[in-house]
């Protein structure tokens, strides 16, 4: 276990919390055949990875709004790429709120 500065450990803990909530939301809402812990943070949502399709993207947007009270614009394709890009969007919105 790495010996990290406290501020960095807090940063990691905050990120983990968001990532876990995103994974839980996607698994429940999209009825994925994975457990949240089976999904890596850099897993792609479409194409390979979770193999979601364009219909699922609307469900993801609704899910993020429901879970975090943030609204991903429909044309913001760069946020809808991986679990981590979703987390980037959520964190940025929370910081600017």
């Amino acid at each position, binding site marked *: *276990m*790495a*010996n*990290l*500065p406290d501020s*960095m450990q807090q*940063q*990691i803990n905050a*990120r*983990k919390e968001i990532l876990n909530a995103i994974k839980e939301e996607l698994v429940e809402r999209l009825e994925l*055949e*994975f457990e949240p812990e*089976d*999904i*890596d*943070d*850099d*897993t*792609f949502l479409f*194409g*390979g*990875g*979770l193999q979601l399709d364009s219909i699922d993207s609307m469900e993801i947007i609704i899910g993020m709004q429901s879970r975090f009270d943030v609204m991903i614009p429909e044309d913001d*394709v*760069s946020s809808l*790429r*991986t679990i*981590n*890009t979703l*987390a*980037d969007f959520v*964190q940025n919105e929370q910081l600017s709120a």
Partner: protein
Amino acid sequence: MATTTPQTWTSPLAHFSSDLTTIDDCRIANVYSDTDAEYNAIRESVAISDNCHYGKFVVRGADAQDAVNLVVLADVARLAIGRATWTFLLRSDGSLICDAYVLCTGDDYIILTEGASPETVREHLTGAMEEHAASVEDITTTTAIIAIDGPYAWELLKQLVGVRILGLRYLEFIDDQKLGDNDVRIIRSGKTGEFGYQLLMDAKHVTSVWSHLVEGGAELDVAPAGAEVLSLCRMENRFINMHREGADARNPLEINCRVMIDEEKDEFIGYEALEEATQSPLERRVIGIVVEGDASQVPSLGAEVKVEDEVLGRVVNSGFSRQLGKPIALAALDAEVAYVGLTLAVAAGESMLDCKTVSAPFIYNKSLTVRPQEDSYKTRKA
């Protein structure tokens, strides 16, 4: 087995370049003329590439499905005819031999591999056939592959083989398409993050098909792209490079490929090691880093990544992102710290440079905003 691939061989397309490199025992183009032009073709228009270095195998016989399932991570029993999957071949210790596309034709399975010599893959496949009514044929040198990548890759194929290409979904393939007088099998796949297709054909016809693509794509500014630029594009989009992070990983979990494991499949080479790994805390994980400050310093493979004096891991792949204008790298870090948003330090030459952990992929792809039913290269926006 009808044929075997010689230990080192030369792609039938190699004569188009004077700068060759050897990948998986095959000499192919590293650079054609100008890496800027090659990169721009992939990211802005259409690039064609020589993928003849892939290992290529046909597995056939009554037990072909079971035999293939024994050697790949994915469950090919789930594959419909006309569909492909992207997966790994593992060693018994769970480490990765190579990645592979597996195509289900209905009559047999075609396996296209990258990351190991055809001889290594053939021996691995042949060993798995021993207890099955199945045989493996090495078609590496008799079958050629040309890749087409770019935001307008679909437009080139639409012009040459027809509108049907627009209906081809990711990892689907269609047979008996004509390019000139030549039959090709077209797979929707790629490792650049842009629209991508791979064309399989008899190696005797590959030069003719290549010329056909160059001539047919003149108005789309088609350009050939070599291995150097393709490797960068692969990293920018976080496709696994089996010669870098894939070779370094002890199992697929370390390279963020946990969802590729089929929970219901329990008989394949590497299963026991992978089962043990999935039930233990992950020790390290690969994450992207962007180097801040000095744009000329690309971290070397093996360079330490630190916070204060604590070594957190090492660089397993690196390059200079042309789109970001910054050095990028993949680092295998202690899994407890492999999270996005951290400011760390990476060794580059004699100095330690600030770097930031970032989400996959590194870049934005133009293909995300191109709509094949409506758009065209000619009328594209800047």
